[in-house]
């Protein structure tokens, strides 16, 4: 029995009505592992992986058993309801959310399995790790499945918590704790934007449910729509590491590598893209043109920031992190294009989820084998020692730089094409940035490939941070199998998905708007590949032909110094917020203790003479006063009661 709630939205039935199990399974896993404590040490990792694999299986069943020509609404219970404000705890199962659910549970399953091997050095705490991963998967699924902006917000902050817990996994180390806190704080700055957007929706549309908000936005004035669009974008910037809130993501690499792969590459950081695609009924409005332009600018600026800094870092995972920053920049740019780009943003998100997760798992495999060494200047020549890692990583690398007919080729190419297709100078500017980014990406990724896997083994004779020799070895099967599966996805995924995904998504985010730029689609493809090849060639010329020093060169140009210092983003934060903030709180504490309090005490003292005398007399006075008042009150009450009832 289906009832129509709005155009194209019906009550869930069949497989879709069991969608609540998708989040309930990992949530249950997390609860059992956290409450069960040490008792679950032996099998915690199996339960943790099992719940996510089961959720993936259920997602596949839902995918095949549901008609995605419609959007399905699943009401679970009344969550927050006060007069006009009615917020469901409910899910929306449609083409967009099921796409994300498959990505999250699919990549999530692989990374859970990988973690069994990766975390085997920490048997005592492994089940807590799996509890946090389960918590993350559950919150992420709520984020994409929720049927209102408030349930989205619930998942949004929930993944923030899981990310905080996992970045701070090595909490005995100060830098990990600080990185975790930084991530949560910068995310909260974005969350303020999302929260304010929700307040605006309630005030103007009387609801926060997708169905009702999207039905009401059509007639809204331009100012309101732009405001909502920009506030949602602020939220997206926080979660997705976009300019100006990108600085937390590289620091987040302090967490274990599976976490970087799952949360800080494949899934959570793409939530901003989801948010904008989900809000496509708002961003597609003609009133939202200015908001879309800002989204594009943010995406383009972030592409360049991520690429430039990625070229300069020597930390394996941080290069990949900045690569993620810039690749999400592509996705944000794509969804900023509006109906011309939503589907391609999502397409790139999925292909990126595969190859970037694979790249991170490869990095983890290397670090696992090299006593957690992440400095690429101390690696090199590892392809012989770790063949599976090397080949899977190389496939991911080729997919990322857009090697013809691998997955990144299809998705990035579509975005570049759509950007070039914008009218007037916009098309040239955004298309040009996207092309330049492709060249830079090929440059820094080739640099990584050469320094880590090719060339001479620079680690022979060196000792790791804990004073041991390096004995690189291939990783166990639980780690290599997920890497192989992801590599296969990186090779084949793009071709298949680019054929079916845009059409599949139509009921959720609308038809793809064809663009026709100055260059034909084929020309754009050739141009992109050529520019990537140039980037890769330059990297080979610089890094591939000569031996690289183990120590980082210090005599470098200003540009390299700036890139190594995150383009001074952290310095700016420090100077603008951290230091003034510290002084402000110190000054306020002083004022509160001496000023506000002192004023009150001073007045009291002034009335009663010296403060010492006052305190003495007060003490005696109040005590006896209080006692006599107590006695008096009891007597009065007693007397009155006696009189009354006598």
């Amino acid at each position, binding site marked *: 029995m289906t009832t129509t709630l709005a155009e194209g939205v019906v009550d869930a039935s069949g497989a879709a009505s069991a969608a609540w199990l998708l989040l309930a399974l990992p949530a249950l896993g997390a609860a059992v592992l*956290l409450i069960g*404590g040490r008792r679950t040490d032996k099998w915690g990792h199996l339960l943790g992986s099992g719940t996510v694999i089961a959720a993936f299986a259920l997602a596949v069943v839902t995918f095949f058993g549901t008609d995605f020509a419609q959007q399905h609404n699943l009401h679970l*219970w*009344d*969550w*927050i*309801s*006060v*007069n*006009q*404000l*009615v917020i469901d*705890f409910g899910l929306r199962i449609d083409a967009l959310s099921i796409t994300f659910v498959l990505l999250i549970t699919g990549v999530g399953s692989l990374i859970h399995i990988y973690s069994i091997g990766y975390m085997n050095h920490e*048997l*005592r705490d492994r089940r807590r790790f799996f509890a946090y991963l389960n918590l993350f998967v559950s919150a992420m699924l709520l984020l994409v499945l929720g049927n209102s902006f*408030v349930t989205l917000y*619930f998942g949004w*902050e*929930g993944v923030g*918590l899981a990310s*905080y817990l996992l970045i*701070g996994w090595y*909490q*005995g*180390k100060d830098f990990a*704790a*600080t990185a*975790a*806190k930084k991530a*949560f*704080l910068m995310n*909260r700055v974005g969350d*303020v934007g999302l*929260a*304010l957007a*929700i*307040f*605006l929706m*309630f*005030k103007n549309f*009387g609801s*926060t449910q997708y169905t009702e908000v999207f039905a009401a936005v059509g007639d809204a004035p331009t100012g309101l729509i732009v405001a909502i669009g920009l506030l949602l974008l602020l939220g997206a910037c926080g979660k997705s590491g976009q300019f100006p809130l990108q600085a937390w993501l590289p620091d987040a690499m302090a967490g274990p590598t599976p976490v970087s792969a799952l949360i800080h590459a494949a899934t959570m950081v793409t939530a901003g893209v989801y948010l904008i695609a989900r809000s496509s009924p708002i961003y597609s409005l003609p009133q939202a043109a200015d908001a879309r332009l800002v989204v594009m600018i943010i995406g383009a600026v972030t592409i360049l920031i991520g690429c430039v800094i990625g070229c300069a870092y020597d930390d394996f995972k941080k290069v990949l992190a900045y690569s993620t920053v810039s690749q999400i920049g592509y996705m944000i740019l794509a969804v900023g294009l509006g109906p011309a780009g939503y589907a391609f943003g999502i397409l790139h998100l999925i292909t990126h989820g595969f190859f970037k997760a694979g790249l991170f798992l490869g990095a983890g495999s290397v670090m696992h084998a090299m006593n957690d060494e992440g400095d690429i200047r101390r690696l090199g020549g590892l392809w012989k020692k770790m063949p599976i890692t090397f080949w899977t990583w190389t496939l991911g690398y080729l997919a990322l730089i857009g090697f013809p007919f691998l997955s990144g080729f299809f998705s990035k190419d579509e975005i570049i094409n759509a950007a070039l297709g914008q009218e007037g100078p916009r098309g040239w500017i955004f298309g040009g940035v996207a092309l330049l980014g492709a060249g830079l990406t090929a440059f820094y990724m080739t640099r990584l490939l050469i320094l880590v896997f090719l060339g001479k083994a620079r680690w022979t004779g060196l000792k790791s941070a804990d004073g041991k020799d390096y004995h690189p070895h291939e990783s166990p099967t639980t780690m290599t199998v997920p890497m192989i599966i992801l590599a296969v996805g990186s090779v084949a995924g793009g071709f298949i998905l680019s054929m079916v995904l845009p059409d599949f998504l139509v009921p959720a985010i609308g038809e793809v708007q064809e663009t026709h730029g100055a260059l034909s689609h084929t020309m754009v493809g050739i141009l992109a590949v050529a520019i990537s090849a140039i980037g890769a060639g330059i990297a080979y010329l610089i890094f591939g032909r000569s031996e690289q020093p183990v120590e980082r060169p210090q005599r470098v140009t200003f540009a390299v110094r700036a890139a190594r210092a995150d383009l001074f983003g952290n310095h700016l934060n420090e100077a603008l917020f951290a230091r003034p*903030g510290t002084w*402000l*709180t110190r000054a*306020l*504490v002083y004022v*509160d203790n001496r000023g*506000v309090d002192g004023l009150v005490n001073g007045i009291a003292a002034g009335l009663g003479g010296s403060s010492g005398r006052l*305190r003495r007399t*007060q*003490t005696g006075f*109040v*005590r006896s006063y*209080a006692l006599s*008042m*107590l006695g008096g*009150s009891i007597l009065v009450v007693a007397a*009155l009661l006696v009189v*009354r009832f006598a």
Partner: protein
Amino acid sequence: MTSSSNSWLLAALLLLPLVGAAVVTGLRGNDRVAKLTALGFSLAEFALAIGAWIAYAPDGARIQQHFSFDWIPAFGVHISFGVDGIALVMIAVIGLLVPLVIGAGWAEKLPEGRTAGGFFALILLEQALTVGVFAATDVFLFYVLFEIMLIPMYFLIGSYGGARRQYAAVKFFLYSFLGGLIMLASVIALYVMSADELGGQGTFDWATLVQTVSDAPLSTQIWLFLGFFIAFAIKAPLVPLHTWLPDATAEAPIGVAVLLVGILDKVGTFGFLRYLLPLFPAASEALTPLVLVLAVAGVIYGSLLAVGQSDMKRFVAYVSIAHFGFIALGIFAFSSQAMTGSVTYMVNHSIATGMLILVIGMVIARGGSSRIADYGGMAKLTPLLAGTLLIAGLASLSLPGTSSFISEFLVLVGSYPNAPVYTIIATVGMVFAALYVLWLYQRIMQGPLRGAALVGATGGAAPATVEGGGGVAVATEPETKKILDLNSREKWVLAPLVLLIVGLGLYPKPVLATVQPSVDATMCAAGQTDPVQSAERQLQCP
């Protein structure tokens, strides 16, 4: 004497802790028996509170379980009690917290010469008085209880507290007492006005007063409003009347701090709702900017000071000052969403901050210091304690999934339509909340083991050799301190709070449905309508 159905429940709620206090006082000789007796009475009281909640019909009359008899007939003073949804949930929270406070204080080291019996008897006495304050429906009776309530608290802080307890207790007492005296002037004026209005005999009956004096001229209303407001703003400390709270919280024993911040302070915001808005609707509206400025100033000021604190207990006090800013904002933004948010904030703040104080007490009990700098990396020794501190902290920063999120979200989303600028500033407070909570957690629990309270300490958990399966004994050096994780008593104290935080975060309906009719009635009495209009589900006034 008049009474309505089920009034015996409320009467029992008032009397049971009094009887308990008397019995426990008599058992002072035997600490263990005294403690068990106090716990028994507090649990029975909690069961009664649940019973009263079940018996309460949200859609029935505003004031239920009502009973009344004459006290001072010459002035129309009655001893009359009754509950509406707002008072009821607060009484239930008191019922919840007192047994937990008794459990947490089980092993409290009291100052020399003090007995556990005396301590717990005072707590039960305080419980009876606070139940009375929330349930009083006679304004004079409310005033009397409002003042008497200070006395057990004065002794709880002044006799059982920390090193500077005398100073803190006196400061607490003077602030609150003076505020109360100012309120007394307004209370008497209400009587005089009602006498004029009714011809001859005046009244202190709250419901009658609402009907007779609420249309007084604005200038009169403003003076009377201020009389009540100052008393309430001291109690629910609004900046700049807050400075007694950090001292009182820092010096009070942990359980007493829970009662102080969790319950006594709520009398202030309860007073806003029960007395200010219905009795002085015109003044409430005219003075809204004043209250909103103080509220938002409190959010930001309290947050910044919480960031800067070096003492854990003072930290909690400033966190609460920020939270009271949110509550005041929600009440004076005049929408049923924001006001319902404020009432649930009062409940959830008691639960979340109560838990935060209890956990901090457990940290202090282990390290023997309340200075944050004396700790570091403690999670390694006490992972469970660290987890509970984090949960309490996350509830304090209103993470979705905790009950506090429901209330903070309702306050903000409901305040935005009428007070957008204030709401935006308060929303920025969310970032500060994340900062003060996570920074506190980092300094105490994360990083390498350090700090004067912990250096040389070892954990009580299984030694690191567990992977080898061997039972190798850890060598104990002379300076080694053994710091153990939560014991089962502490787990029993914290578990109900964790359950409530998560449970009410996912399913807040029981609280929302109980308080909303009373909130609607308060909105109507204040002459306010909801800013966001809708065809259905609109606030209905009789």
